[in-house]
């Protein structure tokens, strides 16, 4: 296990270096002069050459690419992602401050999705080809089809229209300050993300359950006189869950990507909002920092999935 883990972690390094390279080269790929674009938009042209030079240095454009790459990487290793062009604040600090809302929304969405999708998938498989199965499957496909920003918009307009109820809180409160207020803020966006997630997980759950139901050990379990529900729960569900857990891990990327949408709809100061605001202001160090952070988070999640695989399935460990 340790050897497998070590190999897997070392294997991540080249990918990480490529990701870092993409992040560093980003500012150089902007067509035209990025410095002109930013100076024009911030309307600080008066300072002239000095401002240009300062900006070039800030973006690492005053040195050749390999040098600024090495500088950026060593900065990252020290936990330094540079400074915002806008208010000179350290990017690392901004990212860390915006991380908790995004992660808690993702966590709540995953919990909601598990609670809903597992029973739906099992029911759909056990009652295969009945009207209930068709209904659940159609709803699941609809859930996958509707983009999260449409669901989010619906979450905002319909309660407001019908009950005069606003789900958008304009002041963010952290969980430590006031758990109830925090959950009130977290739950609507989490529910929006959970809908798409539930739909895709329920579909996989159904497929896996159907596969498991035809296995010999299910027949054996039934033959030795276990009750129907014990067979389904103990023998069926447990075996069907492994790929479902993998899917949940993979969907983490979907949740983080979705945060850009939900956080802008529900006015939540998370990582997604930070990215959007930075893009509006062309604050490249922040864009770079957020992109890198998200990429690393997704890579770490993939590592966790692989580890859980190795833990659950000895064949992977010893391969």
């Amino acid at each position: 296990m340790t050897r497998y883990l070590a190999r897997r972690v070392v294997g991540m390094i080249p990918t990480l270096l490529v990701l870092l390279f993409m992040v560093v080269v980003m500012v150089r790929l902007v067509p035209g002069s990025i410095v002109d674009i930013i100076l024009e938009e911030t309307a600080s042209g008066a300072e002239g050459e000095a401002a240009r030079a300062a900006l070039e240095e800030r973006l690492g454009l005053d040195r050749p690419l390999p040098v600024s790459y090495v500088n950026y990487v060593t900065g990252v290793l020290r936990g330094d992602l540079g400074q915002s062009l806008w208010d000179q604040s350290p990017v690392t600090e901004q990212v860390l401050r915006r991380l908790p809302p995004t992660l808690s929304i993702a966590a709540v969405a995953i919990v909601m999705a598990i609670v809903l999708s597992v029973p739906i998938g099992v029911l759909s498989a056990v009652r295969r080809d009945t009207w209930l199965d068709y209904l659940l499957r159609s709803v699941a496909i609809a859930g996958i089809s509707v983009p999260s920003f449409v669901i989010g918009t619906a979450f905002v307009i319909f309660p407001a229209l019908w009950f005069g109820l606003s789900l958008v809180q304009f002041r963010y409160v952290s969980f430590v300050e006031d758990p109830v207020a925090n959950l009130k803020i977290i739950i609507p966006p989490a529910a929006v993300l959970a809908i798409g997630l539930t739909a895709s997980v329920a579909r996989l759950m159904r497929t896996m359950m159907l596969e498991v139901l035809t296995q010999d050990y299910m027949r054996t379990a039934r033959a030795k006189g276990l009750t129907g529900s014990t067979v389904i729960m103990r023998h069926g569900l447990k075996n069907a869950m492994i790929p479902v857990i993998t899917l949940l891990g993979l969907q983490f990327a979907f949740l983080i990507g979705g945060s850009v949408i939900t956080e802008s709809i529900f006015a939540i100061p998370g990582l997604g909002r930070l990215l959007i605001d930075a893009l509006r202001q062309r604050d490249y160090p922040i864009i770079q920092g957020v992109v890198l952070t998200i990429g690393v988070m997704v890579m770490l999640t993939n590592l966790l999935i692989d580890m859980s695989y190795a833990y659950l399935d000895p064949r992977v460990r010893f391969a």
Partner: protein
Amino acid sequence: MAVEQQTGAAAPPLRLGTDSRLSRFLSTTWRFARRKPLGAVGAAILVILVLTAILADVIAPYDPVVQSQSEALQSPNSRHLAGTDQFGRDMLSRLIHGARISIYVGVGATILSIVPAMAIGVTSAFFKGSYDYGIQRIVDAVQALPGLILLIAIVAILGTGLWNVIVALSFGRAFASSRIVRGAAFQVISMDYVDAARSLGATNSRIMLRHVVPNVFAPIIVVASLGFGQIIIAEASLSFLGFGIQPPAPSWGGMLAGEARAYMYAAPHILWIPALTLGLVVFGVNMFGDALRDVLDPRLRGS
């Protein structure tokens, strides 16, 4: 249909060929519709979407960008079947022209992604070794970014607008589908006919272009059809955030963007009508893609 086949049989051989091809196409389509009713519904939605996009100039009752303040925020009525938005623009015309933008983006990004996906996937599978390793680490790095984040990063480089959005979308798609091309290409390369070609002295590029590429087309078509719906959603999401197709161009996602939400009490139709249209179209495209996958390549089921 039976009558057609009989006349076909009585005709000269040449006509028989075309006739039976047509009837074969019809019967295949019919069988597809019978076996995959939801897929057929999806196909119908897709056909309507494409026709709407092609005929947008003809069927749209008004100019989609001309404003008319005196007619702003009308509910659906006989003059404006889907009502008007906050600038008095006809919603139906905007939806119809929005279909054209969705199709431009969907088709453009799909086509643009196929060549790089092929190039990455086929060469990676063909040369194997350290080349494959290096290329796959790049693919890994790109894949580590969730779709929308990657799009935003590319738009941060290129800027907004129709062409930049198409390029940005095709970039992500190319890397995603290159994985599937690579998998398929590995299988093809292990085939005897590739060895045969090699022993006859075929060059690497000839083997790749003449033997491998044609044989990985089936999975590419399936992946492209499944990706089409995702591309439409991605464009709409990006435009919704304000970084995609820029107003006044009528993108469906843009129609739901921030400022429209300010009118949700006065005129909810300016939100729910585009939302419903978008949901229906993506539903249709997904259903069609699902059915197509089941028919063309059952191995990809569940992916």
